[in-house]
């Protein structure tokens, strides 16, 4: 459902993505793995339309996304949970969810996913704990009823016990809805446990695409260690 071909992009003069190609099938969870600075977050920002790409193409269900504004890409069914979560700290939990539900969808989807959020509905998003903020960011993305979910470092800065709980809930929900997911995650054990396939990104290109089960310690070592 998502096809990326020969993508080139970067910031200022520096090119970060140097001809990356990637596909995500319907209902497939793909983990993007690789060392820091290899272009994983840049790729997600390109798909979301937050960063223009210099060359190459991004297609969603066969439709090109190039040149579309971020809000148009969002309306076509791409939801983004950015690194650092970026919830609206001054707005209440409910307002955060309502923003995502303005164009179809209901905030109940978010509360069903993480019932703990309901008790905090009237509290400012910024008053939540790190784990709850991540729940809110994911719930906000799911409320919009996306077709493709982009997750950037969802486990960052959250207690390990909470991480696994959130991961299980999200994986179950994504599977039942048949969502496609592109996951950037430093915790490779977690990423390989939930993903169908891992794409290793190295120096701005897709270096390898391997089924999660077939990823060995040696493969991980060759792409992940400095």
């Amino acid at each position, binding site marked *: 459902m998502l096809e990326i071909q020969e993508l080139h992009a970067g910031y200022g003069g520096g090119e970060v993505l140097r001809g990356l190609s990637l596909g995500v099938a319907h209902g497939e969870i793909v983990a993007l793995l690789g060392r820091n600075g290899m272009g994983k977050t840049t790729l997600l920002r390109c798909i979301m339309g937050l960063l223009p790409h210099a060359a190459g193409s991004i297609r969603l269900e066969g439709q090109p996304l190039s040149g579309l504004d*971020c*809000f148009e890409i969002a309306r076509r069914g791409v939801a983004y949970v950015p690194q650092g979560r970026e919830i*609206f700290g001054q707005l209440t939990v409910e*307002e955060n969810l*309502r923003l995502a539900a303005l164009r179809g969808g209901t905030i109940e989807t978010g509360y069903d996913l993480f019932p703990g959020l309901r008790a905090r509905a009237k509290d400012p998003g910024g008053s939540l704990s790190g784990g709850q903020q991540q729940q809110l960011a994911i719930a906000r993305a799911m409320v919009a009823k996306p077709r493709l979910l982009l997750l950037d470092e969802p486990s960052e800065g959250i207690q390990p016990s909470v991480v696994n709980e959130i991961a299980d809930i999200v994986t179950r929900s994504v599977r039942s809805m048949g969502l496609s997911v592109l996951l950037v995650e430093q915790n490779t054990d977690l990423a390989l446990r939930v993903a169908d396939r891992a794409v290793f990104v190295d120096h701005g290109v897709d270096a390898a695409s391997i089924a999660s089960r077939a990823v060995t310690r040696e493969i991980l070592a060759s792409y992940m260690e400095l």
Partner: protein
Amino acid sequence: MDRILIFLLDSSNAILVLMLVSLGLAVIFGLMNVINMAHGEFLVLGAYGVLTLQWAGLPFAACLVIAPMLVALIGLAAEELLIRRTYERLLDTILATWGLSLVLRQGLVLIYGPGSHAVAAPDMGSVPVFGEIYPVYRLVVMALSAAAIAFTFWVFFRTALGLQARAVIANRNMAACLGINTRMLDRLTFAFGAGLAGLAGAVMSPLISVDPNAGLGWLVPGFLSILVAGLGSLSGPIVGAAGVGAVDSLAAAISSPVWAQLTVFVAAIIVIRFFPQGLMALKRREA
């Protein structure tokens, strides 16, 4: 006692209109990070709008409704043609909107001449207020200003549009990631802010001398109101305008309007010197 009452009514009148002006400035700055130096001219355009529509034979009430809308449309055009090209560059917004203010001012001189005009005051008579005779129209000005302020708060805190605007203020990129058309909100907000200024000019038009340079006298206290209370909230300009307006009225009653302006400036400088983040920041720190 009677004089104090009249003084309080007159002060409330000035303060409420100043609140409208600074609210418009704050809305535009909050959402778009644009310091609108042409805000005073938008106000003057509101007054000229009433003048022109009155010449065309429209009843005063209709002028009050249509003139702010015309100013909002002019704001919309200015945003599309000029302001949007300066986003992300704060200093350029000052230069661009200052240029716009010059163009608008000279445009008014070309069309209406450099002299001042008087808008015919609607004949509403006077009523006794707590035993004092007070012009009805001034009460209408207060009511309209208060209603417009309440409407602005309602839009921002009770409607889906306002929720989206607050999201854009907090985090523009993330708002776009949720499917919010931030460009559309920029247009609407600028037009809305301009419309608030236009309304202030329209309601005040029978009470002031309508001339091309009348805007500056509103722009400066409008900015002071925002600076004194602090940026980053809608209640800031309300509190600031109350303070600036009260000091101005009080000083003007005791001495003269010239001394009043000086007093306001000195008071503002003292406040900003000791509370650089504004008086509202003080409250936030305690909370």
